[in-house]
């Protein structure tokens, strides 16, 4: 059988907020959604993207001279459309300023890294989390990776936006110890406006997983002025209650840590200047879910 390869943009060890215990989070590249608050803009495109850390660049010009197809000009500006990800410039860069968001990796390679922290998982009740992007964009790779983890007795979690063919969930359900299922907006119009896609599939998949006994927690990013109205949160709570399971809700307040990555990718930051919500407001949001009898935690 051919080796299964995946596009991975980061493997983060000692993750403490993506499921229980100490975890290693594997971030898969490519996402069908375009949430305007996205904190990982590098996760969106399926292909690798060349970036330069300006702070590390020493302006030596080697990248320009080695690029065989002129994707870097004399002013060292990057032309990503032209770039064919040959990585000549990255290996020529003496300061490590150039790198690619995204890397083609085999399951073996990724799993080797996952195995490095196996003792920390055992001691903390942690494990592997597959996140993204949307992991279900690369179901074969994710299924194979989860399979390996299960085989080694490592707890698994899958962080998903829920936008995929239900058949993919069917494949990973027996391999997934915990689904971290994102719900952003209940109103389909608004969902389309802010994420670029309709939410019908997402809500259907949430219901399917809940019905089929998946262990799951609902994750909601709290974006000021976009989805943190009591109206949206109440509808979300009602939807969750309607799933027939008392699912735990995690609220993830908005942060702008991703802003710099937009800059590096030459992408405009849609939420520029937006203030982070205060604790009081977050508490009020939590109370809405609690009023529906749901356990809720702010991260």
């Amino acid at each position, binding site marked *: 059988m051919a080796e299964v390869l995946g596009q991975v943009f980061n493997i*983060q*060890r*000692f993750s*403490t907020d993506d499921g229980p*215990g*100490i975890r290693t989070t594997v971030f898969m590249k490519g996402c069908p959604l375009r949430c305007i608050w996205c904190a990982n803009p590098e996760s969106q495109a399926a292909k690798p993207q060349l970036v330069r850390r300006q702070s590390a660049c*020493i302006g*030596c010009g080697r990248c320009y001279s080695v690029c065989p197809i002129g994707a870097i000009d004399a002013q060292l500006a990057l032309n990503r459309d032209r770039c064919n990800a040959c990585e000549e410039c990255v290996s020529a860069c*003496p*300061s*490590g300023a150039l790198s690619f968001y995204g890397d083609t990796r085999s399951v073996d390679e990724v799993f080797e890294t996952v195995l*490095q*922290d196996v*003792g*920390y998982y*055992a*001691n*903390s*009740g*942690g494990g592997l989390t597959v996140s993204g992007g949307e992991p279900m964009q690369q179901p074969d790779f994710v299924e194979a990776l989860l399979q390996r983890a299960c085989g080694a007795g490592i707890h698994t979690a899958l962080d998903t936006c829920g936008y995929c063919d239900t058949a993919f969930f069917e494949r990973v359900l027996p391999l997934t110890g915990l689904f971290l299922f994102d719900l952003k907006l209940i109103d389909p119009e608004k969902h389309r406006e802010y994420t670029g896609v309709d939410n019908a599939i997402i809500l259907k998949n949430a219901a399917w997983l809940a019905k089929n006994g998946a262990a799951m927690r609902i994750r909601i990013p709290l974006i000021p002025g976009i989805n943190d109205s009591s109206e949206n949160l109440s509808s979300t709570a009602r939807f969750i209650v309607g799933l027939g399971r008392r699912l735990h809700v995690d609220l993830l307040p908005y942060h702008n840590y991703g802003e710099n990555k937009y800059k590096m990718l030459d992408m405009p930051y849609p939420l520029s200047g937006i203030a982070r919500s205060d604790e009081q407001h977050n508490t009020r949001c939590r109370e809405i879910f609690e009023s529906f009898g749901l356990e809720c935690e702010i991260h």
Partner: protein
Amino acid sequence: MDGITKMQENHIDYDAVNSVNCLTDRVKMLIKARVESTEHICSERSRLATESWKETEGENLDIRRAKLFRRVMEGNPIVIREGELIVGSQTQYILGASPSVDYNPAIALENIKIEDKTSGDSSVHNVILTEEDRQSLTEDCKYWSGRSVGDAVLRESRERFPWLKDWEESGLVNAQKAGNPPGAKNVDYGKAIRVGLEGIIAEAKAEREKLEYAEHPAEDYRKDNFLKAVIIALEGAIIYARRYSKLAKEMAEKERNPIRKAELEKISEVCWNVPAKPARNFHEAVQSFWFIHLCTNLESAFLAEAPSRIDQYLYPMYKKDVIVERNLSRQDAAELLACVFVKLNEMTAVKPSYDKKNIPGTQLQATTICGVDRDGRDASNELSYMMLEVLAQVNMPQPPIYVRYHAKINREVWMKALEINVRRGDGNPAFMNDSSRIQSFLDHGIPLEDARDWAAIGCAGSIIPGRATHGGSLGINYINLAKIFEYVLNDGKDPRTGKQIGIHTGDPLTFTSIDQFIEAFKKQFDYLISIMAKMARITTYIDVSNYHTPFLSALQSDCIKKGMDARAGGVRYPQFLYHIADRGLQNVADSLAAIKKLVFDDKKLTMKQVLEAVSANFEGYEVIRHMLRSAPKYGNDDDYVDRIFDDLSLWLSRRIDSELNPFGGRLWAGRSGAVAHVTFGRVTGALPDGHKSGEPLADGFLSPQQGMDTHGPTAAFNSASKVMHMENSNAALMNMKFERKLFNNKTNLAKLSAMIENYFQRGGFHIQINILDRETLEKAQERPWEYTNLMVRVAGYSAFFVDLPRNVQNEIMSRTNEVI
């Protein structure tokens, strides 16, 4: 049944301990007085010691040392300050010390000059020295110059090892103008508390009776003198305590406040009884501990006297008063502990400038809690738990507490230790691992029961307390591995001084593989260590043969039985008296990995380019420096470099272990703390790992280079625990920093616990977790007066941040937070 036994044995009332408030008005007043005090250099002890020594000329060494000690006990100023419950002060000042001129007048002379402001190092903190004290000390120094042990060692070194000066100038070893008096001592505090000094005098007398002068008259004579000396010294300590008893009584008579009057009467009674007799209650046990600790310092003042397993030897009286008889409330017990914690912060020493720079602002009084008992059971008790709470409430740098972890440790005590660590944020308490420590001691022939009784000493080192002690640190014991790597790059020549210090190992331009570099490094070390070890044997032997400590020896097994001073080898495990500390291996391994990667594997650079860049300190070679810095670095769980680090670490410790120490047994590799990485960094030139001339080396023994561990803490822990780095070592120090918000709740604290426990299961030994943010430190640098209480741990100990020299402050700030 088990539960009932457990209750009776080590019952802990967690809620009751958590609700104590040891910051009573009294304790607050004592803390304030200490924080606002200025350090003094005093002359009394020196004067008394000098007088006594003049009078006893011609007598036996042990007797002379005992009489000297007794004279200090009879004459050292005594003072009982407002509100004190635990009494006993080094000098008349809250913070003051008298230099051990009898050991080495050079330290006093150096300090006299510094305080004179005519010379000396302005980066070192000034202390007050009155004109009267200066004159007195100058007189004493005149007498001792040429007579002291320090002089004897120096004479010998100069004669036999004239090249030592070159070594020091090169930066290969720690350069000390003057040797320090024996530090990192400890005694059997428990025995003093249990049987009293009179009991030990009786023991010494009984031993004397056994001396028949028949078969081994010469040996019996030596023993006889030693035992006489022990008796004189112990009597001296009793006299000292009873002077306090009388002073308290006099003060009580004059006292109008009835509450304080009663306290003074109590103090008088306590000091009459202890340490002469066995402690009858908790208050007496604590006072007895303090007197013994203080007397050990007054016999031979320096630093790093280790209270050792305090939660064990104070527990019997705690249990009797608090748990069984219930005549002492937990609140009052906590207040007594707080009083003695403040006292530990009043301890100081007159240090040579080398130590002021390297181990500033602290006394390194390593205090150990938890661990297993001699039978292997969990030794955690309510006092361990209370110590942690008191440590958090008093919130001063001393004592540095080391929590001995093992699989059976009481979980609530363990989690409390983690919670306090995060609450204080300064790496105190730190954590040590029973299983790797005990295993390594067993491998070195220490019997199981004694191995289980180990305790921390100095900067995260370890020892068998009451049965072993450190000797002096005369001569040299730190060796700069990064410097040796410079020799490798220059065929044995030191680029700093231009002198050929190492041996010829060949022109590195001709090397065709990384193994040749490694072989050259081993050859250089092999050559240097055999010289260093021999020199250390000679100088240490001169030292311990001429400077005895009868008081300390009286409280160390098996000195009385052997009739031999502790330093001369009377202790049960004399192999701890001297060790050699190898430092900077992280830089060496990272340099080797960089050469391997860029020159041999990827062939992106030639060795010539690397050497040119290094000899130019990377000026004009920034691109090459960037390339070298991007090569694999230790601390990222990358076998490419970790393998080099691990193989060399084991080779070095085994090579050191193959040398004999002069007391029987083999040499230890000293892999504990202190900040030699700053001093060594200052004299180390540019290296192929990207290190620039003068920058600090990586700290401790196992901490990754500053800012180079980019794969998170689990990767750094894994790098540090692929092999057992403390196999032939006193320690294996590892420091990590985290943002506070990572561990801001109980769930996250459990993750911290899991991380440490996994490191320990992998064979790690020591971990110190600092919780700090750069912003706070920057503010503290700008406005030090607003941050007088800000503490940090620097490689194995706590100090007030504002007390640290600027370069050490900067170094702390440059370490990355583990998770950003």
